[in-house]
């Protein structure tokens, strides 16, 4: 477990180095070459710095960034999953307002410190969610006239 941040640093900087090298490779192989002059310049520096960072991570010489503990990861995961489903699926499939209401209520239920066993706390969450929906509808649908995907309900 003590090696967790070091391994995480190796994985993270490895991904960045992979991206850097891919960008560099694409910059030098794509045509027309004139369109890639600036990307070549940037991607060369990108790749060099990314490999340098990866090397430092492998040697265990990374000084900044404390990674993610298992505890933090377990706390983040439910919220992150709700966020991913909300943004990448439900916002479009169910409509912005419906999905925002559901996501807001679920996030509140997941992270609100109030006890889950009390009816009062559930009523409070429902009221806060309704207030949030009313403000968002007022701001975006009525004030800014933004036409968002509606799909079901509104």
């Amino acid at each position: 477990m003590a090696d967790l941040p070091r391994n995480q640093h190796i994985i993270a900087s490895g991904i960045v180095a992979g991206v850097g090298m891919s960008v560099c490779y694409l910059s030098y192989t794509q045509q027309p070459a004139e369109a890639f002059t600036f990307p070549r310049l940037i991607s060369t520096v990108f790749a060099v710095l990314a490999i340098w960072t990866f090397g430092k991570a492998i040697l265990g010489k990374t000084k900044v960034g404390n990674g993610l503990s298992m505890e933090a990861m377990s706390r983040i995961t439910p919220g992150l999953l709700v966020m991913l489903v909300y943004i990448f699926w439900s916002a479009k499939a169910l409509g912005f307002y419906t999905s925002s209401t559901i996501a807001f209520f679920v996030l509140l239920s997941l992270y609100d410190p109030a006890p889950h066993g009390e009816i009062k706390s559930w009523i409070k969450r429902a009221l806060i969610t309704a207030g949030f929906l009313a403000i968002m509808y007022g701001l975006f649908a009525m004030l800014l006239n933004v036409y968002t995907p509606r799909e079901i309900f509104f």
Partner: protein
Amino acid sequence: MEFLLYFGDVFTPVNFGLLLIGTIGGLILGATPGLSPTMAVALLIPFTFKLEAAQGLILLGAAYTSTVAGGAVSAILLKIPGAPANIATTLDGHTMAQKGEGAKALQLSFISSAIGGVFGVMLLIFLTPVLAKWALAFGPSHLFWLAILGVTIIGSLDSSSVVKGLLSGCIGLWLATIGFDDIMGAQRFIFHPAVSGGINVIPALIGLFAIPQVITMFAKGRNDTSAEVIEVKKQPVMDSIREVIKRKRALGIGTAIGSVIGLIPGVGGQIAGLVAYDQAKKFSPERDKFGTGHSEGVIAAEAANNAMVGPSLVPLLTLSIPGSPTAAVLLGGLLIHGIFPGSDLFDNHPDVAWTFINSMLIGQILMCIFGLYVAGLAASVARVPHSVMAAVVLGLALFGSYSVQNSMGDVYVMASLGIGMYFLERFGFSAAPLVLGLILGPIAEANFVQGSMIANATNGLGPYFMTGTLNLTLIAVVIASIVYSIWMELRQARYTTKDDAVHKEEAL
């Protein structure tokens, strides 16, 4: 004195109303721990689409000014700085509040913020037109180096690791090249239909600044982390005004240091506040009282962090080079109205430029007046559970990024960049240089291509980009900023263990 001609424009009902909304809203947002001034301004941008350029900038400028000042409320009453710029305020401000002088500390902070802020905006008023005229002499090679300087200086000075800061800047510059090439029309790095038109700056800014904050709030879990708010008793304002006048040395030091630091790109309000606090302590005959609830500590720190707001916009308004992440967000607010900073702004849109700058001047005074009354309310807002804050910010980020072009692609870009940035931040990368790279990338590339064409027709690339006093000066500053940061990092490494670095990061 051209600015005086446009003073009346600030007082039209709509403009003044927006100034009030931005100021009061900014004070409340600033007092909320976890909502940084940059994120607050980024989330406000979608609300400026329907407004005229000057009106949009008034709203964003007022929010910027007052979020920095509002951060003092939670620093004093909760011992949680609302923004990094308020870290130094916590040292004496919270101790004053614990001793029953919370109201006095708040009044001192708002009065000194306003005085420092007014001085900073005056500097912006008198320096900007002169520098904008001077910037006319800049050719493509100079503008290319300036854009690179903007990225490297923030990458090296604003990050805990120089290499990772510069790497973040490179990622931003690369992201800016995604889409169609302007000259050849060639596709570059289009790996998903969502980025076929390139990466839109506004959704990217919202994602990079808002989503990592949301996930950070998730990481706190279900713990009730709301801190105890110290009660504020009534205190005559005149006593605090007299105290600020009596402590004019601390006020002068804070204002001078904040103004100078604000002019240097990449060195933010956090440094301004801490350096001013340190210098005020050194020059004070009562230096032993610092840290025990001494008014000079609050005055110096708050005067400094607001004095830097005006000067921090000088590089943006004259050279199109944002000197800070918040200035980069303001640049985004200008660009959506098709206005480019520099001499064009002052020659072709003087009404926009001067109304915006004048509104910042009036905003400082409004911030002082309302700050004293809103402080109590703002402190209560600071106790809003992080679960509610996270859900609200996530909703605003989704709606805000969609409303830019009514495109789900922008929403996907916002979320992908935001989630990616959260994980990168855990490993020492930072959002500020990435954002600067994303914003300055097109400026750097356009001037690089234009310069290359001139160079090919004349002396060649090397002599065009690498010779001339201004080119060499800019290259020297780029190298000096990197070398200085590496030297500082090595010097710090001698005294700082890995654990210290982790603790320092967590504290920030």
